[in-house]
């Protein structure tokens, strides 16, 4: 909404139009500033004459405006606009300067005259008048407001309101409830927010048995069935209503076994490898006595479901992977070095600081573990059980990574979203606790999902053409965790969602109509957040699933899902000749692999200290062939080949923004070329269809963000608004607070220059 290209009517049409009448004020004539509110959103408190620090040494660029706290966000309505016209992806739920309350990690108030600062929690008192408010955000932004010209009381009140409302006491106080509840208010059940949850989405949510059935069919898991014993959540509180089990296990048995597992979590089927090996996740037994017996029964059932009756391999994740506290600690350190420490001072030790955060090391550990599992499934042809105490954190990461590496379907946009539905949302990852939306228990907070996204990014970074989506998509998906609106990230498990939605509806006497409970939109309903045009930023012009083999014998074929499915199931049986790319089929190399082992053994001791493990050999063998982007993909795990996800972690840092540079400039060219190709395809299709389709289809259906122009072809540089942070902008989103982290004395010396007449009048120094 700040890019100045308002197009179609959106829900914003419901918002009060921005007032433009001019009000008189002693210093400057100011506009009447109103927060834009969403349905169900109310203003809690506000302060005028607030200054937002934009950054840089001087404060001449700082913005004046009104700071508003609502039950959803911290909004800053600027009186003047940013110094330059900057590009920004327009967000439908948030204005340019807005921060959702759920994204506020910490609100710190400062009085620089008194040299005081306080981290504000819920229901707290503030004994000094704040001159400054610093918001530390979960997405690594640090936003700073100054109250030099604001009334001290209103400044204090707005700070307290922000602190209070960012610590909701109950899940039902999360804004999503009001927002979604509003939809049912009023008349006829017409969707107020233009949301049609689930409907019209191509992403399977796995909340019904048909989605699971399709997944069973897609992966050829004929010896597996959908189990419905948990309907109504009567067996396990944390399992979904529908899940998949071996056909040889009867419902009766399962009910019996359930009590031996942590929170009655019966082992869950995730996915089948084309060879028939299954990937299964299981929580640890609560009773070690019974453990062996039940596990044996489960294992033998899994073996029965394997076409080769292969063994089952158990992979203990708790033993091999960092735990959720480790991951949280790593992210905190990473945040420290990325955005909090002064830039110049941290340059010299950047690499070792990065190492000591251990974030990339953990990313690598997870990827490596997933590769081990892939080796078992793909090379050893055995089924794998992922074992984790609760089966709700590490398993989600590993199970998804394995499927991403093995199954090209998961690298398509809808495949990927379905994967997250299946392995995170339905499997009961505790998003509410891990995001710490209620800020109740910091020990439960952990960025497991972000770590997963980083792992995906590493794969993406190494094989960008294998994924239908872009890194902007991954970044935006990570940010969406902090919008407490989506069914995806609001709850700890499907049952919790069902209960809260029902209770809320009852308590607010919402008439639900046909729905059984409030229906929250999933994050996959991207129109909630972005215009169709902006959503094209998610489409990867490099994606090979689409165009590479489109032209055969001079005829143009469009890519269908069928194709990817065919390729997928053919990973072991040799590729279609069109994709083989001159390399050997997998059959040849399988036999080669064995002979290689025998031959090398005796000589190895001379040059290698450690003998190569079979899985290492599997990896090395895979790397000796050209990668097939529609087949198995293994990440390069050498530490030299894993990097920091700069777009996510460093996008707000102004010092490292490369104007008109960065990978996005190549993306821009690719996007334009792909658009050109789409245009040509349409034209060719018209010839084929003898003028059947109208000529303007291109305009609406183009999947690319950057369009080919029909002006005469000439060389343009990258557009001026492109930068390495695109589509984000560090301007106003990162103000390192000079005060924090520097000795108080230094801060006091510097403080004088900040003193305004108002603070002098109100405070005794």
């Amino acid at each position: 909404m700040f890019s100045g290209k308002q197009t179609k009517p959106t829900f914003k049409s419901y918002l009060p139009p921005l007032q433009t009448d001019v009000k008189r004020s002693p210093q400057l004539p100011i506009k009447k500033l109103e927060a834009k509110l969403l349905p169900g959103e109310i203003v809690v408190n506000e302060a005028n004459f607030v200054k937002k620090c934009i950054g840089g040494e001087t404060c001449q660029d700082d913005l004046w405006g009104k700071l508003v706290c609502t039950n959803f966000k911290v909004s800053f309505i600027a009186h003047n606009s940013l110094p330059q016209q900057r590009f920004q992806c327009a967000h439908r739920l948030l204005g340019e300067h807005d921060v959702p309350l759920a994204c506020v990690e910490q609100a710190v108030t400062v009085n620089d005259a008194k040299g005081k600062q306080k981290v504000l929690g819920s229901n707290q008192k503030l004994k000094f008048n704040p001159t400054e408010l610093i918001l530390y955000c979960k997405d690594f932004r640090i936003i700073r407001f100054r109250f030099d010209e604001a009334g001290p009381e209103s400044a204090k009140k707005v700070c307290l309101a922000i602190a209070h409302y960012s610590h909701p006491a109950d899940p039902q106080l999360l804004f999503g409830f009001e927002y979604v509840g509003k939809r049912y208010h009023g008349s006829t059940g017409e969707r107020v927010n233009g949301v049609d949850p689930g409907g019209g989405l191509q992403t399977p949510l796995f909340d019904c048995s048909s989605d699971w059935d399709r997944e069973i069919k897609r992966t050829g898991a004929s010896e597996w069935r959908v189990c419905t014993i948990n309907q109504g959540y009567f067996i396990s509180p944390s399992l979904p209503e529908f899940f998949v089990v071996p056909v040889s296990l009867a419902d009766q048995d399962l009910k019996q076994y359930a009590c031996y597992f942590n929170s009655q979590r019966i082992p869950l089927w995730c996915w089948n490898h084309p060879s028939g090996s299954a990937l299964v996740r299981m929580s640890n037994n609560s009773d070690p006595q019974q453990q062996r017996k039940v596990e044996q029964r489960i294992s033998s059932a899994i073996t029965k479901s394997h076409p080769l009756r292969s063994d089952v391999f158990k992979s203990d994740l708790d033993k091999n992977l960092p735990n959720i506290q480790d991951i949280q600690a790593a992210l905190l350190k990473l945040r420290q070095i990325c955005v909090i420490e002064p830039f110049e001072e941290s340059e010299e030790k950047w690499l070792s600081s990065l190492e000591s955060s251990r974030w990339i090391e953990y990313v690598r550990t997870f990827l490596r573990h997933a590769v081990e599992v892939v080796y078992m499934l793909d090379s050893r042809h055995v089924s794998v059980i992922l074992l984790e105490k609760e089966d709700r954190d590490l398993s989600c990461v590993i199970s998804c990574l394995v499927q991403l590496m093995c199954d090209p379907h998961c690298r398509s946009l809808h495949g990927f979203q379905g994967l997250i539905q299946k392995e995170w949302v339905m499997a009961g990852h505790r998003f509410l606790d891990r995001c710490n939306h209620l800020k109740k228990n910091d020990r439960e907070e952990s960025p497991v999902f972000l770590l997963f996204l980083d792992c995906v990014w590493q794969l993406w970074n190494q094989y960008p053409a294998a994924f239908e989506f872009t890194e902007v998509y991954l970044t935006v998906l990570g940010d969406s965790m902090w919008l407490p609106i989506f069914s995806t990230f609001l709850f700890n498990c499907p049952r919790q969602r069902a209960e809260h939605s029902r209770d809320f509806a009852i308590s607010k006497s919402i008439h639900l109509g046909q729905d059984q409970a409030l229906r929250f939109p999933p994050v996959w309903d991207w129109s909630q957040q972005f215009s169709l045009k902006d959503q094209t930023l998610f489409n990867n012009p490099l994606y090979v699933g689409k165009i590479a083999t489109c032209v055969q014998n001079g005829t143009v074929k469009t890519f269908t899902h069928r194709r990817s499915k065919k390729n997928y199931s053919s990973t072991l049986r040799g590729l279609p000749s069109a994709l083989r790319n001159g390399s050997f089929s997998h059959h040849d190399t399988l036999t080669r692999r064995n002979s290689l082992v025998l031959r090398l053994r005796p000589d190895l001791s001379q040059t290698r200290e450690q003998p190569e493990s079979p899985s290492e050999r599997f990896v090395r063998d895979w790397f000796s062939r050209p990668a097939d982007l529609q087949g198995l993909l293994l990440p390069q795990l050498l530490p030299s080949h894993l990097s920091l996800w700069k777009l996510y972690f460093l996008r707000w840092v102004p010092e490292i923004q490369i104007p008109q540079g960065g990978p996005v400039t190549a993306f821009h060219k690719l996007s334009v070329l792909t658009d050109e190709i789409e245009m040509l395809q349409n034209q060719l299709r018209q010839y084929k269809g003898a003028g059947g389709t109208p000529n303007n289809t291109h305009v609406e259906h183009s999947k690319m963000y950057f369009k080919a122009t029909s002006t005469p072809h000439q060389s343009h540089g990258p557009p001026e608004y492109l930068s390495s942070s695109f589509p984000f902008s560090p301007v106003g989103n990162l103000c390192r607070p000079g005060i924090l982290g520097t000795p108080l004395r230094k801060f006091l010396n510097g403080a004088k220059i900040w003193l305004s007449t108002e603070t002098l009048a109100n405070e005794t120094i």
Partner: protein
Amino acid sequence: MASAPIAPYSSSPLGNSSSQHTSRESLKMEPLAGFVSLPGEERIIDKDIIYMCPFNGALKGKVFITNYRLYFKSTDTETPVTLNVPLGVISRIEKMGGATSRGENSYGLDITCKDMRNLRFALKQEGHSRRDIFDILFKYAFPLSHGMQLFAFLSQEKYEENGWNVYEPMEEFRRQGLPNNEWRVTFINKSYELCDTYPTILVVPYKAPDEDLRRVGTFRSRCRIPVLSWFHKQNHAVITRCSQPLVGMSGKRNKDDERYLDLIREANGTTKLTIYDARPNVNAVANKATGGGYEGEDAYQNAELVFLDIHNIHVMRESLKKLKDIVYPNVEESHWLSSLESTHWLEHIKLVLSGAIQVADKVSSGYSVMVHCSDGWDRTAQLTSLSMLMLDSYYRTLRGFQVLLEKEWISFGHKFASRIGHGDKNHADQDRSPIFLQFIDCVWQMTKQFPTAFEFNERLLVVILDHLYSCRFGTFLYNCESARDSNDVRTKTVSLWSLINSDTSSYTNPFYTPESSRVLYPVASMRHLELWVNYYIRWNPRIQHQQQSPVEQRYKELLALRDQYLKKLEELQLTDSAPSSTHLTNSSTPNAATPNQHITHLQTPF
């Protein structure tokens, strides 16, 4: 040019264009599949040998040594491993083990290469096979130490393009808009009597007569007086380069030098000349002891002096050595980032780049600068050429980059022979240093940050570095132009640019978008600088080598696809008669242009 030092696994950075010129008849010995010799290349010896591959273990095979390269092919058909190493790449050969050591493969050869790898071979004890091969390798790898010629003088390669024509100094100065009424061309050095390490054609302030230049020469180390490198057409600010002033312990002054610097400043009428001394402050001070030093504040009133803190050749050599330790043969896994940090390689890159950024920024804001270090042929060349790359988009083209190297590095006397040690057995020579490699690394960092700004691709940079050592081309031989002249390099050897310019499409970046007036400022932050893994870690077989970067590859595929569609569309239009074309031109939306229009617009010169 199969030449390059390419491991079996590496994507050979070099496509082979010279294979056509191969004269198989010249080979007296058994032909070997996959081995293509260069015209003028002769086989000297072949032997059964065991290659102690650090990745695959011991591999039996055959080694062929020619006057140009060492070629190994494993006899094992299951994992065919080949090594193709120009002898110029070898910096050191040592015998390992022998009669007293035990084990099957005890008679070993250890070969240290200049391109970040080591090779180990084992030979049988019988028949003095190791002695034979050692002697021959030693002789042909270090021909200059044995009174023999470098291979570049024996090569009979022919190319369509003559790379020696790439750089014509007068033409380049004319391109910059020189001479003019501020700057003149002088031939004072036409037979190298002013300065034997400078080129013959120099550009100096218009108001400085040749006699003055000679007097300034007495006050500059090795007479490398300040001369113009680059001229900013709009604001007339210049980049000049030179060596340190001979101030010495006593703090000598030279009126001619002082006036000369003032003439440089005056040329575009600004108030201050900025002198960038590439060295750390303490090093500059220490140089006074050996007669050098820096421009004192009192003597040069209209100048400001900035030290850029870049370390000397010895520091860089040690840094690269440490880097090699952590990447070859195996990548240090447990503490990769802190190990990388402790090599300081990227930190040095950062200092060089940020120095060049300061130079470029100063010049583009209208102030003339002068750059020097001690002798003005190492760090100075890095700084001037990098800042010129930032300022002048011409140097970012394939041709312009060649001109830049010819001008700032080759003609201004970067001591390639000493820094690389071409054909010289003295591997521990303190003069060797990877200054040029460091510069190419900086260029690579820039291409990473601006993927559309350079006409050339990563492959060109790798090929340049490979032939920096290979001694197949005359381009990087000798220390300065006078030495090149007296050895008839231009007539007796082939230029590397002949190879490159005969096959430009292999070295072209498909994303290149010319932008004539843009100054590129890379971000010299550790957060952005990366280790160039495709160069430094390319010998590791665990790394998958694509022919090109996958993104580049994909883009080329898409370009081909577009052309295919365009052709198809054109065909359809030709065969199709009036009806469909009228249908198409009826289109009402401006975006959906007719095929006809597109065909005219969308043809790109790829």
